[in-house]
């Protein structure tokens, strides 16, 4: 119950952020040259026809008025109509949202599956060769830009070996699981190094704390001390690093979706920008901003669950 109230309150606090983000995007997109009506009608349309379409879409109104109409519609749950797809944006976003959600969740899980064990290995014997190897690989991975890594993975694990599909969303749960593997791995390999470094450093700090000496004085095995006492306490700060990285890659999914031809929100955003489809760009921004807020709420809930001293309310 307190958790529900917490979520509601956080969403409410997030509202001004969302509004702010849409306002920023609204201003920015109008700074970019290009006219949606001209774009839709083609270069040979008469100025009269363009003006008529602009009038129909409300583009002849002043900017504050246009933004006011956007927010007003939003309050009723209407995202407006796409000028390039010529259909309501609500269903359009709803169709593409699952792809992006899959990418975010899958990548987060993969990042944890890669990051937590490697951080554990590295922290068990700091300064050992495993630690050195993990550090080397993670710095190397951190240096790889995702557009290049994505292309490499698609080429080697997708096209050449045929282990995984190199593009598309796939059909059904199993299909998604295999189709989304390479794009998710691309994103995860960008996040895992940050997670490894944060967790490793945190575990080494926790290892010097008094309660770890207490745990050792109980005669627990090295692994028992590591798992029950060190890892759990190191996860709390590790989680906030993860939350920040996930928030960050919500935006970066645009690149990955393009590489793997995924019909997600990032792809929709790109098309919206290139066809000057203001409504689509704003709506996708809105949804991505909401996603970032939701990710952070989930992280805070998880932190409260991991650390009983932190009260979620």
């Amino acid at each position, binding site marked *: 119950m307190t958790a529900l109230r917490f979520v509601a309150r956080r969403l409410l606090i997030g509202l001004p952020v969302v509004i702010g983000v849409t306002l920023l995007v609204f201003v920015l997109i109008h700074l970019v040259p290009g006219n949606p009506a001209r774009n839709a009608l083609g270069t040979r349309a008469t100025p009269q026809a363009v003006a008529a379409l602009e009038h129909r879409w409300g583009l002849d109104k002043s900017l504050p008025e246009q933004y006011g109409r956007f927010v007003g519609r939003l309050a009723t749950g209407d995202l407006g109509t796409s000028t390039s797809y010529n259909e309501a944006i609500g269903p359009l976003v709803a169709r593409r949202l699952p792809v992006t959600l899959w990418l975010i969740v899958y990548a987060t899980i993969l990042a944890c599956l890669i990051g937590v064990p490697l951080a554990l290995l590295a922290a068990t014997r700091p300064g050992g060769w495993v630690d050195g190897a993990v550090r080397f690989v993670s710095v190397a991975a951190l240096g790889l830009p995702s557009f290049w890594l994505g292309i490499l993975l698609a080429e080697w694990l997708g096209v050449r070996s045929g282990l995984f599909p190199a593009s598309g969303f796939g059909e059904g749960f199993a299909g998604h699981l295999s189709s989304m593997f390479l794009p998710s791995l691309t994103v995860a390999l960008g996040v895992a190094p940050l997670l490894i470094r944060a967790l490793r450093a945190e575990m080494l700090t926790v290892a010097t*704390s*008094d*309660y770890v*000496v*207490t*745990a*050792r*004085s*109980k*005669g*627990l*095995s090295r692994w*028992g001390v590591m798992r*029950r*006492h060190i890892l*759990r*306490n190191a996860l*709390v700060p590790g989680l906030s690093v993860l939350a920040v990285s996930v928030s960050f890659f919500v935006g970066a999914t645009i690149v990955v979706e393009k590489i793997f031809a995924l019909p997600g929100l990032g792809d929709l955003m790109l098309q919206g920008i290139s066809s000057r489809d203001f409504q689509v760009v704003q709506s996708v921004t809105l949804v991505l901003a909401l996603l970032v807020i939701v990710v952070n709420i989930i992280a805070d809930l998880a932190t409260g669950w*991991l*650390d*009983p*001293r932190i009260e979620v309310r």
Partner: protein
Amino acid sequence: MTALLEVSGLQIGLDTGVPLVHDVSLSAAPGELVGVVGESGSGKSLTLRAVAGLLPAGVRVTGGSVRFDSQEVLGASEPNLRALRGGSIGMVFQEPMTALNPTMRVGAQIAEGARAHLGLSRRAADQRASELLERVGIRDAAKRSRLYPHQLSGGLRQRVMIAIALAGSPRLLLCDEPTTALDATVTAQVLELLDELARDLEVAIVLVTHDLGVVSRACHRVVVMYAGRIVEEGTTDAVIRRPAHPYTLALLRAVPTRSTTIDDLVPIPGALPGPGAPLDGCPFAPRCALVEDACRAKAPPLIEVEGRRTACRRSEQLRRPREVVLDR
């Protein structure tokens, strides 16, 4: 009475070779409470940690022997040490706030030791955790075992700490400043509890503290350490009533009692010599009122005087302190 714990000639030093503890010998028999007192940096906690093989990184034992139940502990394999730690040897640490895992329920922290050493099932271990909490005087034990450390008061946390140390049915309890973080009332309760454990369970207890009041109330015997060496050792009564080392006397004079005013308290001039400082003579010589040339020339050995051991050549010159009576 044969000693359960027998430390002899223990030497501890940094990996870099700087010596920290010199030639420390002490013993504890079942049911006996032995106090180890000294200032911060006197090596008392290191001595205690060495017994359990829990020296901090960069510090190691460089000589001597530690025998538990006639078995050598130094150099024992890690599995053997693990069987001792938390099993036959329980440890109680100073700061119960930081010495308890903040993200684990206190019951589980007690139960994990019981599971590791007594081979109990999860349910039986939880049961034992509740029993131990009751044993250390916590009411509503079953309910309180579900709480986290930050939900308990300092006194209760220290009791939990003791329950953790008792989880594996130890025969020896090593207590590192168990009362330092507690107020006077709770200190008295914890000391009473330790005394009970020694009597009822025949547990040998080594209690490290900087507080002579604690020693005088709880311990049967006391070892006074200074700069990594034992300077005096004997029954609490003898050492506290008629100290035979100027350092012990100076410590006693620095303890406030009910009848002292601020003018009666005599601080000890100077400071502890740093670790590794070259000391040819008595380590206390630079701060001692009775010092003479011979003290600076050669470190005095521990000698038997009036039923206790002292490392002072001039112990007979010590004035009887005006009846030092500590709050009992």
